[in-house]
């Protein structure tokens, strides 16, 4: 069952379905199951479905859900009920996932040495542990195509930099707290930079423009700095 434990009204044109209050893979899987189930209802009055770590926002068109007995938010929430009754197991998790080649350390990962020292590991061991992880995209946010990944080994957690960089290069693979992610383009950012991928994560000419989507499995593969450039798609 995908029944949320609470439904919060985000103003007069969105609902937030709450599935938990922590960063947890099982909770996040339920968020994605609910998102798929609601999308499957093909309700015309739904404008956006936006997954978070432990919640799913449903942005709706209030004119569509106008009703004499209830507010549009209440009517829309009622219309979502059939999606909550479906099995959360229908995940389609058999996907092989996406491999992200990463060049760890050096000019591409200027914070690797500092991060490794803080974790009591050699830079090489730190990079190996990061590349050995089995990750899943919890959500995209912050900037178009930016994936927040679940599955970081607890030993690799890093505090954010006290002074964020104004320019983090596109493709930077980074750690912030218990999360790891990839900057899809040059952005300001406060996470620790441990490597960089030549892969393009967000390309408006592609359909869809995002290479990674919420719920996808991700693996990092260490490459040498001399490896071929953009792997294309």
């Amino acid at each position, binding site marked *: 069952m995908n029944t949320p434990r609470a439904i*919060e*009204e*985000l*103003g*007069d*044109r*969105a609902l*937030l379905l709450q599935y938990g*209050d*922590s*960063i947890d893979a099982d909770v996040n899987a339920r968020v994605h199951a609910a*998102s798929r189930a609601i999308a499957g209802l093909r309700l015309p009055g739904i*404008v*956006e*479905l*936006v*997954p*978070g*770590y*432990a*919640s*799913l*926002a449903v*942005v709706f068109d*209030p*004119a569509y859900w*106008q009703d004499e007995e209830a*507010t*549009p*938010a209440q009517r829309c929430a009622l219309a979502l009920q059939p999606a909550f009754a479906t099995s959360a197991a229908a995940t389609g998790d058999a996907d092989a996932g996406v491999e992200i080649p990463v060049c760890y350390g050096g000019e591409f990962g200027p914070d690797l040495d500092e991060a490794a020292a803080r974790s009591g590991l050699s830079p090489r061991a730190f990079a190996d542990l990061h590349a050995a992880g089995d990750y899943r995209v919890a*959500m*995209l*946010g*912050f*900037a*178009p*195509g*930016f994936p*927040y990944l679940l599955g970081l080994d607890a030993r690799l957690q890093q505090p954010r930099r006290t002074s964020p960089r104004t320019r983090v290069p596109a493709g930077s693979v980074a750690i912030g707290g218990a999360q790891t992610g990839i900057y899809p*383009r040059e952005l300001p950012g406060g996470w620790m930079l441990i490597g960089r991928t030549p892969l393009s994560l*967000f390309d*408006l000419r592609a359909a*869809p*423009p*995002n290479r990674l*989507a*919420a719920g996808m499995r991700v693996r990092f593969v260490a490459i040498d700095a001399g490896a071929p450039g953009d792997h294309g798609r």
Partner: protein
Amino acid sequence: MPERPAITVADPMITVLRPGLLSSLQDLGRRGHAAIGLGASGAMDPTLLRIANWLVGNDDDAAAIECTLLGPRLRFDVASVIAWCGADSEALLDGRHFPTWRPVPVEPGSVLDLAALRRGARGYLAVAGGIAVAPVLGSRSVDLNAGIGPCEGRALRAGDRLALNAAAEPAMRAPSWSVAPSHWLDTSAVRVLRVLRGSHHAALDPRSRDALTGERFRVAADSNRVGVRLTGPTLALQEPLELVSAAATRGTVQLPPSGQPIMLAAEHPTTGGYPRIAHLIDADHGALAQCRPGDHVLLRLVDADEAESVRRRRAAALARLRDTVRQRRRESGCDEST
């Protein structure tokens, strides 16, 4: 009328002579991509965009030029019909008073100077047929923060040339009628913004809860299309909340650790982790869009039923206005060809 040099252009164009402070192409926004981290963007004051489009015979969602505080100076290379809906200014068309809130014909070589806006922050210049830029992911809105959209995802610059859709042949003069702005443009000294409680409203300490909707805030100078920053009484939670990132929505009033709330606007990030203390009602986005840095605002708490009745009244009034504008355009000979 002074003689104008002949201009021959293959495609109908607008040339940007001076960009103004922050002028960008906007329609009603880009829907359906928030899950990949790309927000809607779109007009900060969607109602004024729609009215401006109706005045020139466009659909609601045609792209227009959103202007901020200081408008651009534009040259039209072809005859067309334009309309301005927005904050008042001393705008000049070919050196003469530019009538606003109504359709106005322009000739090849006409120069429009939108000048500084007063008692409001934004306005929309719609052009008959709409501005012919290719949509990006279903919208002609520029998302300045994400750098996505037409015009390379940036604001207009001097020298930009914007193609227009099929040039109207305006056998018309600017009509004597116009839309009365007072219903659609709030110019009161203290702007009242109606809000619904957010789920963390109850987590505010009692004094902050009172201050949020009892005291005035000022619009900070670093407000933009991403969010409007309110400065005033410092708000605090009874105890710190550790929140995991969740979807953020337009109108959400976030409380960052500074204690100074931020009201998210058209280019808000799609996710966020700050407490959600309130949400601006949908009908008041226009009022927010018209706030100038330094303006006073007062948040007024409403419940869901009141928000819904405000939404309905406004939707009905807008529908009436759309019908009236259509009828007046027909009577004025604006729509002879249709």
